[in-house]
């Protein structure tokens, strides 16, 4: 009998494929139920569902981040920095999280010129934005603003909120790539920041590299997540 060769990489890929299908169906079904609840004005259930959808989205995000980091570490991630319409990337990241934002009554606004093109790996940068939106979802009061601008030959992507801002110790310790510690309160394992920081660094142009910082203030006076790409 001929032996069927199965590589670990193939196994991971097909498992992730399967899990993402399940999550996709789960979220889609939950959104359908939420719509019905809203029609009969069952606000309490809608809010509960929002939290469940948020958790499912986080799980999906973690899967994407883990798989990308695994592939990046093995140098098999298909990194592909090409010119992208920035407004489209932002729009998709926002739309991916739209339902859970609505359930919590959060308004997400964006500000990016239609003809703003920049070089990036579309999927990785979208992953960073989705992660930042997920964070902001936790911290914000009720508003999130995503702004893109080109400054000093760098694209600056900012995700700002009107919450209390990041705690002092996080701002002081800006080495975001390092272990942030597990927090069951916010559900943060540091994976999101680590992933985002790696993605920023992988965007190179000549000698310049991308960077990631968090700060407080911005147009909404809360936390700001700032990704700069050369």
């Amino acid at each position: 009998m001929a032996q069927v060769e199965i590589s670990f990489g193939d196994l991971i890929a097909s498992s992730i494929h399967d899990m993402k299908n399940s999550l996709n169906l789960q979220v889609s079904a939950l959104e359908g139920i939420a719509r019905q609840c809203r029609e009969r004005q069952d606000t309490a259930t809608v809010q509960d569902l929002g939290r469940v959808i948020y958790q499912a989205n986080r799980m999906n995000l973690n899967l994407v981040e883990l798989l990308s980091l695994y592939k990046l570490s093995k140098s098999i991630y298909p990194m592909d920095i090409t010119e992208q319409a920035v407004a489209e990337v932002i729009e998709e990241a926002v739309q991916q999280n739209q339902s859970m934002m609505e359930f919590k009554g959060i308004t997400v606004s964006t500000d990016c010129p239609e003809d703003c093109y920049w070089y990036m790996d579309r999927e990785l940068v979208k992953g960073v934005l989705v992660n930042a939106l997920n964070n902001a979802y936790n911290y914000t009061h009720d508003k999130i603003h995503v702004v893109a601008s080109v400054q000093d030959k760098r694209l600056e992507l900012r995700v700002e909120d009107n919450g209390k801002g990041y705690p002092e110790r996080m701002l002081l310790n800006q080495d975001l790539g390092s272990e942030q510690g597990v927090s069951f309160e916010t559900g943060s394992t540091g994976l999101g920041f680590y992933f985002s920081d790696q993605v920023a660094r992988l965007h190179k142009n000549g000698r310049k590299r991308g960077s990631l910082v968090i700060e407080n203030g911005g147009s909404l006076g809360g936390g700001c997540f700032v990704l700069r790409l050369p």
Partner: protein
Amino acid sequence: MALTLRRASVLVIDDFQGMRTMLRDFVRAMGVTRIETAHNGRSAIEHLSANRYDIVICDYNLGPGPNGQQVLEEARLKNLIGVATVWAMVTAEKTPEMVMGAAEVRPDDYLLKPINQMVLETRLSRLIARKHVLAPIEAAIKAHNYAEAIAQCDLQLKAKAAYPQEILRVKSELLLSIGDYAAASALFESILAQRDVPWAQTGLGKIHFHARHFEEAHDIFAQVLSEHVVFMEASDWLARACTRMGHDEEAQQVLQDAVKISPNSPTRQKTLGEVAYRNGDLDVAQIAFTKTIRIGEFSPHKSPSAYTGLARVQADRNEPYEALKTLALSRQEFRYNAEASMLTGAAECAIYHQMGQTERAQEVLAETEKLLEKAAGRVSAEVGLAVSKTLFAMGHKERACTVLQDVVRNNHENLEVTESVEQLFNGQGLHAEGQALIAQSCSEVVAINNEGVTLARSGDLAGGAELLRSASAKLPNNEVILINLCGLLIARLSKEGKDLRLASEAREVLDRLRQINPDNKNYHIYTAALNRLMAPK
């Protein structure tokens, strides 16, 4: 009238019932009424054969049978979808195939899961808008009218269409195809003045390659790869450059690294098999050919040489029965393909000979030679080389030389082919004889060509054309003769005015030329000239 999403007819292809229903419900909620679904590659092809769709949403992963990419390739090859059809490929994760230049046939876009209705609707609307811009360019490319395609690109660039760089990239490929290297080079340089973009760097490498500056090309491709590991196009070109420089070992290493990242290209796996076989690395060659066959199983582009390659490896391993089994599979797979029968026959015959089954070997050889005769010169160099190699092995030196003579005559300006012929002779210890045959065959063709051109220059266009016409009948695969014949026909048309008979002959010649070498730059120049001459006033 421009297509709108609501009026579109949509096909959803997914093997997973839940996803299929979800996608269908999303599309339905967008107001689309004409939606059909298919649950695997085969059923997808049936649907695509029976109906025309404006939008196809297809999962890459379709379970057993063809995958999404293979369904797309078959649909394009058999014209089941038009240039205006939007094809969105759904995948669970980013794959190397999604990187530009990794596959020749590409969907219009990739959609990464998870997908919700809003994301899908936005993406489809954008794709329809983009199709509006790109369809005229794609239509001209499909009609092999590259001059028109370039004009369309310029039109869109001037109109400031979205994604200008994508249009520039398409334009650069067209410029390379028609052999306008100066313009292509200027385009690449202008992009590179802004930023190091891998496709533009690779483009400059290709220009060096075409100019036979293999070392410069090699260094550029290697540089691109050192910075963009997954830019597979650069690694395929790097391997080609290595081979042309005689560095087959480096070529093998480059390809082995490439298949680690992107294992699913049958062409890349087959090239690896061939290079490894030349290097005597039977293990790597065997794995590569086996993999080529496996991933090509449902591909419309599968090739018999993966089977003959594997059989050769098995024969060298002293496993003739395994080799014959492989070739039997090839016979079954390519039942109606004469080229494949000849390739398979040549390989079978060599194995029977090796096994000492002389009678059986003679029988297969006779069948193969009969097919070759029937093809009357219209065979690829690959077949000629394979058959003559077997003839040599069986001691029929003279017949081998006759076949090789035809190979050289049909490809007298193709250095890759003449080098292969030379190598074949060298392998038989017939270095001097090979060189003489190549020189003799080339000079014969050059003489006929020159005679035709001289007649034409002296004003006898009809006489020159007649001479080349009869030369072409004897050497139907010779590109240079075809090109010169076409040039004379066009010269007559331009001098004597419109003549439908001459024009249709010129078109036939051009079609023939395209079949032999779709990248012949004169093909595009003459097609444009003929279209101009025959255009209604």
